[in-house]
């Protein structure tokens, strides 16, 4: 009897996880692992728990391939690449979180306005979002860099602002569907205040998955933008390491056939961005399957 009850009851979280397709399991595990590694590398860098001093030069050991002393080799003045990769997470970690928070905060606001009261807000919000979308991000960011010479936090704040339309549209579409569900209408009919319906029943109970997805995607994008800008020479400047300016520094050696210096940070970017993308996609797939 007990066994029968067990099988008939709701599957546990672990059982649900086991029933996922292999692809999604791999993507989720890989993505979570990457996110954990990035956080760990950032914390190590802040707490100065690095394998080597990232600024210490060693001219007897330049352009070295990986060995026991330098796990990822050294750059053209003999600085330890592993330590510099770890310090490089500082360039995007907090600014990236700032960017994600800004896009989620305002994206959520606009998404709720346009999704919950479409007759009143859909047109003006839609126009505002189209306005923001019609400027290519990198061009707008470069214009702001030229006008104000901002630091990396301000730059990624602007990146967050440019990400508002995507977040708002995703939430708006979801809320527009929820708005017509009977339990939301019931909650409104029962006299619950709009703020309670929106925050508890819409955003918390049915929207947190989407918010999490938007956050992972936003973090991946923040890494790409930060590294691109630092590569172009507008973001984090040498000697402070960023994965972007590390690739740029290895350029001359790359064309001479010493591919390693540029490739290490490039692969770090690849793994981090891929991790956040895969995690976001796997979460989105799960959400779509449930809906």
């Amino acid at each position, binding site marked *: 009897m007990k066994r029968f009850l067990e099988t008939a009851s709701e599957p546990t979280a672990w059982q649900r996880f086991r029933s996922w397709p292999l692809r999604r399991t791999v993507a989720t595990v890989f993505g979570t692992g990457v996110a954990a590694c990035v956080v760990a590398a950032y914390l190590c860098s802040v707490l100065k728990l690095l394998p080597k001093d990232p600024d210490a030069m060693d001219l007897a050991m330049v352009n070295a391939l990986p060995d026991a002393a330098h796990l990822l080799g050294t750059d053209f003045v003999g600085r330890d690449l592993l330590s510099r990769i770890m310090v490089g997470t500082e360039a995007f970690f907090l600014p990236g979180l700032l960017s994600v928070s800004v896009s989620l905060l305002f994206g959520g606001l606009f998404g709720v306005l346009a999704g919950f009261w479409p007759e009143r807000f859909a047109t003006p919000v839609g*126009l505002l979002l*189209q*306005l923001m*979308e*019609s*400027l*290519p*991000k*990198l*061009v*707008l960011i*470069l*214009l*702001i*860099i*030229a*006008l*104000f*010479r901002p630091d990396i936090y301000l730059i990624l704040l602007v990146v967050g602002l440019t990400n508002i339309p995507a977040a708002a549209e995703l939430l708006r579409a979801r809320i527009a569907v929820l708005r017509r569900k009977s339990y939301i209408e019931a909650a409104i009919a029962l006299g619950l205040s709009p703020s309670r319906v929106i925050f508890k029943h819409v955003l918390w109970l049915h929207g947190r998955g989407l918010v999490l997805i938007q956050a992972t995607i936003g973090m991946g994008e923040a890494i*790409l933008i930060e*590294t*691109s800008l630092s*590569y*172009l*020479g*507008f973001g984090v400047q040498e000697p402070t390491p960023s*994965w*972007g300016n590390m*690739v*740029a520094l290895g*350029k001359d050696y*790359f*064309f001479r*056939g010493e*591919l390693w210096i*540029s*490739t290490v940070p*490039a692969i770090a*970017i*690849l*793994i*981090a*961005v*891929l991790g956040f*993308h*895969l995690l976001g*996609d796997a979460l989105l797939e799960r959400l*779509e399957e449930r809906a």
Partner: protein
Amino acid sequence: MLKRVGAALVREGIRTAVLFLLVTMAMFGLLDMAPGDPVALYVNVQSLSPDEIRTVRHELGLDGSLPVRYGAWLGRMVRGDLGTSLRTGRPVARELWRTGWRTLLLTGSAMLLTLLFAAVTAYLAAMQRHPVWAAGLTAVGYVLSGLPVFWLGYLAIYIATTYFHVLPLTTSTEAAAGSWSFFLVPVVVLGLGNGTVSEVTRHLGTHLKGVLQEDYIRTARAKGASLWRHLYKDGFVMPLSSLLANKIPYVLGGAIVVEQVFNWPGMGRLTWQAASDRDYPTLLGVTLLAALIVRAAHILKEAVQVAVNPQLAD
């Protein structure tokens, strides 16, 4: 159909005009907030006396209130006067004209390559006939989207010069811009490396799967009719046109990086140089042109979608 498309074009044209007005207001606001004297956008402040500067300021309408200044600025811009580049001293409009078409060609070709890659991958995945190819291409798409486009550019240059001897290492001359390899390598790098490949593939794949489950597709299959003839409109033309419009800003942004990597004399490189030298008249022109390109892609999308699906006309 022509009437529907025409109506859609008019509607989108009006919306674009409104957006353009708002974009220029935002630009003007930014410019107004920025440190520095806006007169410097139009004349060389160092070579003129204070009196002359005052005259110029009055002529340009820069001494009025905010709406007056905006009106004067907008009026000059509509006539095609975007000011002169602080770096070269030449009119910004001419610089844009000189470089813009190259970037448009690069961006357009790269975008087509992205869509082609995504369409093939998504088709293979949705039809489930070649699962190994589909899985392989999907994985390649993910890796390409994560790799930074500048490193991909380095790799392409390295391979092209070392193994194929097609690309000169420094390609800064205008003459080299005509050769095929000079054009092809950046297009491939930007098309595959702009970071949207996996997302476009995923979006298209989900869409195709949905369409393949429709009743009319099942009927077509049962009849033995050409699947492609029933699939291409809803399965490819509609999603691809909207993806084209949605992703063009990303590809334009990627073009800045790619042109920098390849030393390509286009608008992206102009943007980079202008940002380095704080040459804001040029950057302002680039921003407005880029916004126009994005809106043009949007209008194209609307026209295509209304032509394919009359229900969208109203």
